[in-house]
């Protein structure tokens, strides 16, 4: 058991390191510069500090960079290893397939949450650094961090699953992030209930006191949203484990 856990830890460590050292991580750094620049520019416009700060982080981090980061790392980690065949030494290690899958999921979760946190923090520091930090601003920051954590949990499970099912998982990811979450998720009516973003914004409505997220009209209850996201994560993980367990690597 101890040896199993150590092997799992080794898989998480090596996969996480590999993802961070990958060229794809440059996208994170670009996003950091981009968001810092935008937040700095907006801050210089002398707007309503807490409202605008909250809205910008809601728009850029929760709705855009969070699913984007999970999509980039989730859809490529296992898929890249399958394609360059470096997964062979993992498959021939004495670790069960379900633990292997969990190892990859944990790696994607760590890298994605780190990337999203880096982007969020850079934007926050730039914006509130210029306009002034107080306890309200710090609270907005931690509220967004909580939503990012929930979001990473579920988006990672979705994109890791997609990566083992679809060969061109990046295209699916782009479709999902921009069309489904971005467009379908903002349509009126109940169709938004099938987007992850809806539940994240519903949690945000309960947590936050500033910005349009705090006035999100179509929100589901916080408890129901958290339970929905947990159940969705569990179902996606279970499905991924079953498919990975049965997957052949010719």
């Amino acid at each position, binding site marked *: 058991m101890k*040896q*199993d856990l*150590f*092997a799992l830890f*080794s*898989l998480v*460590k*090596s996969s996480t390191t*590999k993802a961070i*050292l990958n060229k794809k991580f440059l996208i994170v750094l670009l996003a950091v510069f981009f968001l810092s620049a935008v937040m700095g520019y907006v801050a210089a416009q002398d707007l309503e500090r807490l409202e605008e700060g909250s809205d910008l982080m809601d728009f850029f981090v929760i709705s855009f960079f969070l699913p984007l980061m999970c999509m980039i790392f989730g859809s490529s980690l296992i898929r890249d290893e399958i394609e*360059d*065949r*470096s*997964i*062979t*030494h*993992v*498959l*021939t*290690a*004495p*670790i*069960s*397939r379900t633990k292997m899958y969990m190892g990859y999921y944990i790696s994607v979760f760590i890298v994605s949450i780190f990337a999203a946190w880096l982007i969020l923090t850079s934007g926050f520091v730039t914006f509130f650094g210029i306009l002034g930090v107080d306890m309200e601003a710090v609270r907005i920051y931690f509220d967004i961090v909580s939503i990012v954590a929930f979001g990473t949990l579920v988006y990672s499970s979705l994109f890791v699953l997609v990566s083992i099912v679809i060969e061109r998982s990046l295209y699916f990811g782009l479709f999902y992030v921009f069309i489904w979450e971005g467009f379908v998720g903002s349509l009126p009516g109940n169709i938004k209930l099938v987007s992850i973003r809806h539940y994240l914004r519903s949690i945000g409505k309960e947590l936050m006191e500033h910005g349009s997220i705090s006035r999100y009209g179509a929100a589901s209850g916080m408890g129901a949203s958290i339970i929905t996201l947990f159940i969705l994560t569990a179902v996606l993980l279970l499905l991924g484990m079953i498919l990975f*367990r049965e997957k*052949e*690597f*010719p």
Partner: protein
Amino acid sequence: MNEFVVSARNLSKWYGDVIGLNSLNIGLPRGITGIVGPNGAGKSTLFKLATGMIKPNKGSITVMGEDPWLNHDLMKRIGFCPDYDNLSDYSTGKRYLYQVGALHGSRNEELKQRVKKTARDVGARDFLNKDIDTYSQGMRQRLKLAGALLHDPDLLFLDEPLSGADPQARKDLIELIKDLHEEKEHDILVSSHVLSEIERMTSEIALLYKGRVIASGDISEVRGLIDKHPHNIVIDGVRKNALAKRLIDQNYVVSVGFEDNRRKMIVEVEKPDEFFQQIASLVNQTETEVFEMYSRDDNLQAVFDYLVGGGKR
């Protein structure tokens, strides 16, 4: 332990319309066994089935008495060196081995010692700290071999371990594989499409062709089968006409022909052993000057063509 390290019963594997293995029946004994066959014979498919990377469509395979599919405990006892390059280019050899060792549950001082010992055993110590993308093919093969050996498995699967290596590296790797069995007592299944290379490692072989075993056992028995089939022997030299006339009278010669602007004489013989016993005296008697003489059928493809053709040419 089971009599055979690997057993297959009616084992079939197909990929869409392509057949990888076709009702294969085989029992591979302990020691070193060579799996020989041309490209597409099913060697790599057999290894992937044996290491649990793919599952059979029909039939069964056991490795040391156990089903390898989803059997992660079995992985402690086997090591796999694939025929493809599975090394990450942005890592050093040392990092790769530490990662492989950690996945097998080894750590700290034990892992350090294992990496050191295995690198020494496979002759990879000198280049272990260099980036993998600077490695030659021979170095890559050694590193892959070290990865397969690191956890000291009972049984090693080496899929085309000599492919791409230069002649010196091939020679060294052959010696290394022999040592792994003779000194470290690993059982080894090694594949190649070059019979002569396998012959230098072991006398126990299995010939695969189009997903089936067409001959297996001691190499001399298989060679016996090969020797029974007509050989095409090429003779290059001058004053060959006299030799041709004498050869056509011999009862073991089927036909004599010429090619390459009459530069080369092709002799089809039914009993190669008799031909090789008598050719020296015939050359002397006819005063033929021979520059070169070789059997065109020593290549593996000709052997397979003969064996699968039931002896008909």
